[in-house]
Protein backbone atom coordinates (compact mmCIF):
# COMPACT_ATOMS: atom_id res chain seq x y z
CA UNK A 1 0.00 0.00 0.00
CA UNK A 2 1.03 3.54 -0.85
CA UNK A 3 2.73 5.31 2.09
CA UNK A 4 0.63 8.39 1.40
CA UNK A 5 -2.64 6.46 1.71
CA UNK A 6 -1.47 4.90 4.96
CA UNK A 7 -0.43 8.24 6.37
CA UNK A 8 -3.70 9.93 5.47
CA UNK A 9 -6.13 7.16 6.36
CA UNK A 10 -4.66 5.24 9.30
CA UNK A 11 -5.91 6.28 11.81
CA UNK A 12 -8.93 7.76 10.07
CA UNK A 13 -11.74 10.09 11.02
CA UNK A 14 -15.02 8.76 12.34
CA UNK A 15 -16.73 9.86 9.12
CA UNK A 16 -14.09 8.11 7.00
CA UNK A 17 -14.45 4.90 8.98
CA UNK A 18 -18.23 4.81 8.70
CA UNK A 19 -18.10 5.56 4.98
CA UNK A 20 -15.84 2.57 4.31
CA UNK A 21 -17.81 0.35 6.68
CA UNK A 22 -21.17 1.20 5.09
CA UNK A 23 -19.96 1.16 1.48
CA UNK A 24 -19.28 -2.56 1.62
CA UNK A 25 -22.76 -2.41 0.10
CA UNK A 26 -23.30 0.23 -2.65
CA UNK A 27 -24.90 3.33 -1.18
CA UNK A 28 -24.96 7.13 -1.45
CA UNK A 29 -23.77 9.70 1.08
CA UNK A 30 -27.14 10.31 2.64
CA UNK A 31 -27.67 6.54 2.87
CA UNK A 32 -24.47 6.33 4.92
CA UNK A 33 -25.70 9.18 7.17
CA UNK A 34 -28.94 7.25 7.80
CA UNK A 35 -27.18 3.93 8.42
CA UNK A 36 -24.81 5.51 10.94
CA UNK A 37 -27.66 7.24 12.74
CA UNK A 38 -29.44 3.90 13.08
CA UNK A 39 -26.27 2.02 14.07
CA UNK A 40 -25.48 4.48 16.85
CA UNK A 41 -29.07 4.94 18.12
CA UNK A 42 -29.12 8.48 16.79
CA UNK A 43 -25.99 9.48 18.66
CA UNK A 44 -23.93 10.22 15.56
CA UNK A 45 -25.40 12.39 12.85
CA UNK A 46 -22.76 12.92 10.17
CA UNK A 47 -22.79 16.30 8.44
CA UNK A 48 -23.19 16.87 4.70
CA UNK A 49 -20.15 19.15 4.31
CA UNK A 50 -17.87 16.56 5.87
CA UNK A 51 -19.59 13.72 4.00
CA UNK A 52 -19.30 15.39 0.59
CA UNK A 53 -15.64 16.29 1.14
CA UNK A 54 -14.73 12.80 2.39
CA UNK A 55 -16.50 11.02 -0.46
CA UNK A 56 -14.75 13.05 -3.15
CA UNK A 57 -11.39 12.66 -1.43
CA UNK A 58 -11.82 8.92 -1.02
CA UNK A 59 -12.91 8.57 -4.63
CA UNK A 60 -9.80 10.44 -5.79
CA UNK A 61 -7.62 8.21 -3.61
CA UNK A 62 -9.43 5.15 -5.04
CA UNK A 63 -10.69 3.84 -1.70
CA UNK A 64 -14.21 3.91 -3.10
CA UNK A 65 -15.57 4.04 -6.63
CA UNK A 66 -18.60 5.56 -8.30
CA UNK A 67 -21.31 3.04 -9.23
CA UNK A 68 -24.23 4.99 -10.68
CA UNK A 69 -26.54 7.91 -10.05
CA UNK A 70 -30.03 7.60 -8.63
CA UNK A 71 -32.27 10.66 -8.27
CA UNK A 72 -29.30 13.05 -8.19
CA UNK A 73 -27.55 10.92 -5.57
CA UNK A 74 -24.21 9.34 -6.43
CA UNK A 75 -23.82 5.73 -5.34
CA UNK A 76 -20.38 4.45 -4.38
CA UNK A 77 -18.89 1.13 -3.36
CA UNK A 78 -15.67 0.24 -1.54
CA UNK A 79 -12.64 -0.86 -3.64
CA UNK A 80 -10.03 -3.49 -2.83
CA UNK A 81 -7.69 -0.78 -1.58
CA UNK A 82 -10.51 0.64 0.56
CA UNK A 83 -11.11 -2.82 1.98
CA UNK A 84 -7.43 -3.10 2.90
CA UNK A 85 -7.51 0.26 4.67
CA UNK A 86 -10.71 -0.72 6.48
CA UNK A 87 -9.12 -3.96 7.74
CA UNK A 88 -6.08 -2.04 9.01
CA UNK A 89 -8.29 0.43 10.81
CA UNK A 90 -10.42 -2.33 12.32
CA UNK A 91 -7.28 -4.08 13.62
CA UNK A 92 -6.13 -0.79 15.14
CA UNK A 93 -9.48 -0.24 16.86
CA UNK A 94 -9.53 -3.83 18.16
CA UNK A 95 -6.09 -3.32 19.66
CA UNK A 96 -7.23 -0.05 21.25
CA UNK A 97 -10.30 -1.75 22.66
CA UNK A 98 -8.34 -4.73 23.98
CA UNK A 99 -5.83 -2.46 25.70
CA UNK A 100 -8.56 -0.26 27.14
CA UNK A 101 -10.27 -3.22 28.84
CA UNK A 102 -7.12 -4.71 30.30
CA UNK A 103 -6.74 -3.58 33.90
CA UNK A 104 -3.41 -1.96 34.51
Amino acid at each position, binding site marked *: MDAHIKKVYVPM*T*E*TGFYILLCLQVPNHG*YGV*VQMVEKMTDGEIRL*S*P*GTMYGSLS*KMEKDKLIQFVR*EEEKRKLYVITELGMEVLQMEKARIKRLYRNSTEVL
Partner: protein
Amino acid sequence: MEMTTKQERKFFTITEYDREQEYLSKRHKEGWKFTAVTGYGMYHFEQCEPEDVVYQLDYNIEGNINHEEYTRMFEDCGWEYITTYVGYAYFRKPVADMKEEEEIFFDDSSKLEMMQRIFKGRMIPMFIVFFLYLFWQYLIGYFFEGLFFKVIAVLLGITMTIYILVTVHFGIKYLGHLRRIKK
Protein backbone atom coordinates in the same frame (compact mmCIF):
# COMPACT_ATOMS: atom_id res chain seq x y z
CA MET B 1 -49.57 40.29 -0.98
CA GLU B 2 -46.37 42.03 -1.82
CA MET B 3 -43.21 40.78 -0.20
CA THR B 4 -41.25 43.30 1.84
CA THR B 5 -37.59 43.19 0.97
CA LYS B 6 -34.46 45.09 1.85
CA GLN B 7 -30.85 45.28 0.79
CA GLU B 8 -27.80 45.90 2.85
CA ARG B 9 -24.22 46.39 1.82
CA LYS B 10 -21.76 44.53 4.00
CA PHE B 11 -18.16 43.50 3.45
CA PHE B 12 -16.61 40.27 4.58
CA THR B 13 -13.25 39.15 3.31
CA ILE B 14 -12.99 35.69 1.87
CA THR B 15 -11.81 34.29 5.21
CA GLU B 16 -14.52 35.81 7.38
CA TYR B 17 -17.19 33.24 6.62
CA ASP B 18 -17.88 32.61 10.32
CA ARG B 19 -18.67 36.29 10.90
CA GLU B 20 -20.85 36.23 7.81
CA GLN B 21 -22.76 33.22 9.16
CA GLU B 22 -23.41 35.02 12.43
CA TYR B 23 -24.58 38.10 10.58
CA LEU B 24 -27.14 36.15 8.53
CA SER B 25 -28.40 34.31 11.64
CA LYS B 26 -28.82 37.62 13.44
CA ARG B 27 -30.86 39.10 10.58
CA HIS B 28 -33.10 36.02 10.47
CA LYS B 29 -33.72 36.34 14.21
CA GLU B 30 -34.76 39.94 13.56
CA GLY B 31 -37.25 38.76 10.93
CA TRP B 32 -35.17 39.18 7.77
CA LYS B 33 -34.58 36.08 5.74
CA PHE B 34 -31.51 36.03 3.49
CA THR B 35 -32.26 35.42 -0.20
CA ALA B 36 -29.12 36.33 -2.16
CA VAL B 37 -25.90 38.29 -2.30
CA THR B 38 -24.95 40.12 -5.45
CA GLY B 39 -22.34 42.50 -6.81
CA TYR B 40 -19.94 43.90 -4.23
CA GLY B 41 -21.40 42.54 -1.01
CA MET B 42 -25.04 43.52 -1.52
CA TYR B 43 -27.12 41.30 0.77
CA HIS B 44 -30.79 40.79 -0.09
CA PHE B 45 -33.41 39.93 2.52
CA GLU B 46 -37.13 39.42 2.67
CA GLN B 47 -39.30 39.88 5.70
CA CYS B 48 -40.24 36.71 7.62
CA GLU B 49 -41.20 35.41 11.03
CA PRO B 50 -38.22 35.91 13.38
CA GLU B 51 -36.60 32.51 13.91
CA ASP B 52 -33.44 30.90 15.26
CA VAL B 53 -31.72 29.61 12.16
CA VAL B 54 -28.15 28.36 11.71
CA TYR B 55 -26.43 29.62 8.55
CA GLN B 56 -23.43 27.81 7.08
CA LEU B 57 -21.04 28.49 4.21
CA ASP B 58 -19.17 25.82 2.32
CA TYR B 59 -16.39 26.38 -0.19
CA ASN B 60 -16.28 23.45 -2.57
CA ILE B 61 -15.62 24.04 -6.26
CA GLU B 62 -16.25 20.39 -7.03
CA GLY B 63 -19.63 20.75 -5.36
CA ASN B 64 -20.38 23.82 -7.47
CA ILE B 65 -19.60 21.86 -10.62
CA ASN B 66 -21.80 18.92 -9.57
CA HIS B 67 -24.34 21.37 -8.29
CA GLU B 68 -27.49 19.22 -8.22
CA GLU B 69 -25.87 16.22 -6.60
CA TYR B 70 -24.06 18.44 -4.08
CA THR B 71 -27.09 20.42 -2.95
CA ARG B 72 -29.15 17.23 -2.90
CA MET B 73 -26.96 15.82 -0.13
CA PHE B 74 -27.41 18.95 1.96
CA GLU B 75 -31.17 19.04 1.36
CA ASP B 76 -31.37 15.35 2.32
CA CYS B 77 -29.71 16.25 5.63
CA GLY B 78 -32.19 19.06 6.22
CA TRP B 79 -30.02 21.99 5.08
CA GLU B 80 -31.82 24.36 2.72
CA TYR B 81 -29.63 25.56 -0.15
CA ILE B 82 -29.98 29.30 -0.70
CA THR B 83 -27.43 30.56 -3.20
CA THR B 84 -23.82 30.52 -4.38
CA TYR B 85 -21.58 33.58 -4.39
CA VAL B 86 -17.89 33.76 -5.40
CA GLY B 87 -17.42 30.05 -4.80
CA TYR B 88 -19.26 29.92 -1.48
CA ALA B 89 -22.48 27.94 -1.15
CA TYR B 90 -24.96 29.21 1.47
CA PHE B 91 -27.11 26.84 3.54
CA ARG B 92 -29.46 27.20 6.48
CA LYS B 93 -31.32 25.02 8.95
CA PRO B 94 -33.76 26.07 11.69
CA VAL B 95 -32.56 25.29 15.20
CA ALA B 96 -36.02 23.76 15.84
CA ASP B 97 -35.13 20.98 13.36
CA MET B 98 -31.97 20.02 15.24
CA LYS B 99 -31.69 17.57 18.10
CA GLU B 100 -28.50 19.22 19.22
CA GLU B 101 -26.13 21.85 17.84
CA GLU B 102 -25.44 21.07 14.21
CA GLU B 103 -22.98 22.31 11.62
CA ILE B 104 -22.26 21.16 8.08
CA PHE B 105 -18.85 19.98 9.24
CA PHE B 106 -18.70 17.09 11.64
CA ASP B 107 -15.10 17.45 12.75
CA ASP B 108 -12.15 19.81 12.81
CA SER B 109 -10.24 17.99 10.10
CA SER B 110 -12.97 18.56 7.52
CA LYS B 111 -13.15 22.22 8.56
CA LEU B 112 -9.42 22.41 7.96
CA GLU B 113 -9.89 20.82 4.55
CA MET B 114 -12.37 23.53 3.63
CA MET B 115 -9.80 26.17 4.61
CA GLN B 116 -7.25 24.43 2.40
CA ARG B 117 -9.72 24.52 -0.52
CA ILE B 118 -10.23 28.26 0.01
CA PHE B 119 -6.49 28.78 0.17
CA LYS B 120 -5.86 26.92 -3.07
CA GLY B 121 -8.79 28.60 -4.80
CA ARG B 122 -7.60 32.07 -3.81
CA MET B 123 -3.85 31.67 -4.06
CA ILE B 124 -3.86 31.18 -7.81
CA PRO B 125 -5.73 34.45 -8.57
CA MET B 126 -3.38 36.19 -6.14
CA PHE B 127 -0.31 35.09 -8.07
CA ILE B 128 -1.93 36.09 -11.35
CA VAL B 129 -2.57 39.61 -10.04
CA PHE B 130 0.93 39.75 -8.62
CA PHE B 131 2.56 38.87 -11.93
CA LEU B 132 0.25 41.15 -13.89
CA TYR B 133 1.42 43.97 -11.63
CA LEU B 134 5.09 43.24 -12.17
CA PHE B 135 4.55 42.84 -15.90
CA TRP B 136 2.63 46.10 -16.14
CA GLN B 137 5.28 48.00 -14.19
CA TYR B 138 7.84 46.65 -16.60
CA LEU B 139 5.81 47.76 -19.63
CA ILE B 140 5.34 51.25 -18.18
CA GLY B 141 9.04 51.51 -17.51
CA TYR B 142 10.00 50.69 -21.07
CA PHE B 143 7.16 51.35 -23.47
CA PHE B 144 4.11 53.14 -22.14
CA GLU B 145 3.70 56.57 -20.74
CA GLY B 146 0.79 58.59 -19.50
CA LEU B 147 -1.73 58.74 -16.71
CA PHE B 148 -3.97 55.92 -17.97
CA PHE B 149 -1.27 53.28 -17.60
CA LYS B 150 -0.23 54.63 -14.21
CA VAL B 151 -3.84 54.40 -12.99
CA ILE B 152 -4.01 50.77 -14.03
CA ALA B 153 -0.71 50.10 -12.26
CA VAL B 154 -2.06 51.70 -9.07
CA LEU B 155 -5.29 49.65 -9.28
CA LEU B 156 -3.29 46.45 -9.72
CA GLY B 157 -1.09 47.50 -6.80
CA ILE B 158 -4.15 48.03 -4.57
CA THR B 159 -5.65 44.68 -5.58
CA MET B 160 -2.38 42.98 -4.86
CA THR B 161 -2.10 44.60 -1.42
CA ILE B 162 -5.64 43.50 -0.52
CA TYR B 163 -4.85 39.98 -1.65
CA ILE B 164 -1.68 39.88 0.41
CA LEU B 165 -3.46 41.19 3.53
CA VAL B 166 -6.27 38.66 3.13
CA THR B 167 -3.76 35.86 2.65
CA VAL B 168 -1.81 36.84 5.76
CA HIS B 169 -5.05 37.10 7.75
CA PHE B 170 -6.07 33.69 6.47
CA GLY B 171 -2.67 32.21 7.29
CA ILE B 172 -2.96 33.41 10.91
CA LYS B 173 -6.47 31.99 11.18
CA TYR B 174 -5.42 28.69 9.64
CA LEU B 175 -2.49 28.29 12.04
CA GLY B 176 -4.76 29.14 14.97
CA HIS B 177 -7.20 26.48 13.88
CA LEU B 178 -4.39 23.98 13.43
CA ARG B 179 -3.07 24.71 16.92
CA ARG B 180 -6.52 24.19 18.43
CA ILE B 181 -6.74 20.77 16.80
CA LYS B 182 -3.27 19.71 17.86
CA LYS B 183 -4.02 20.50 21.51
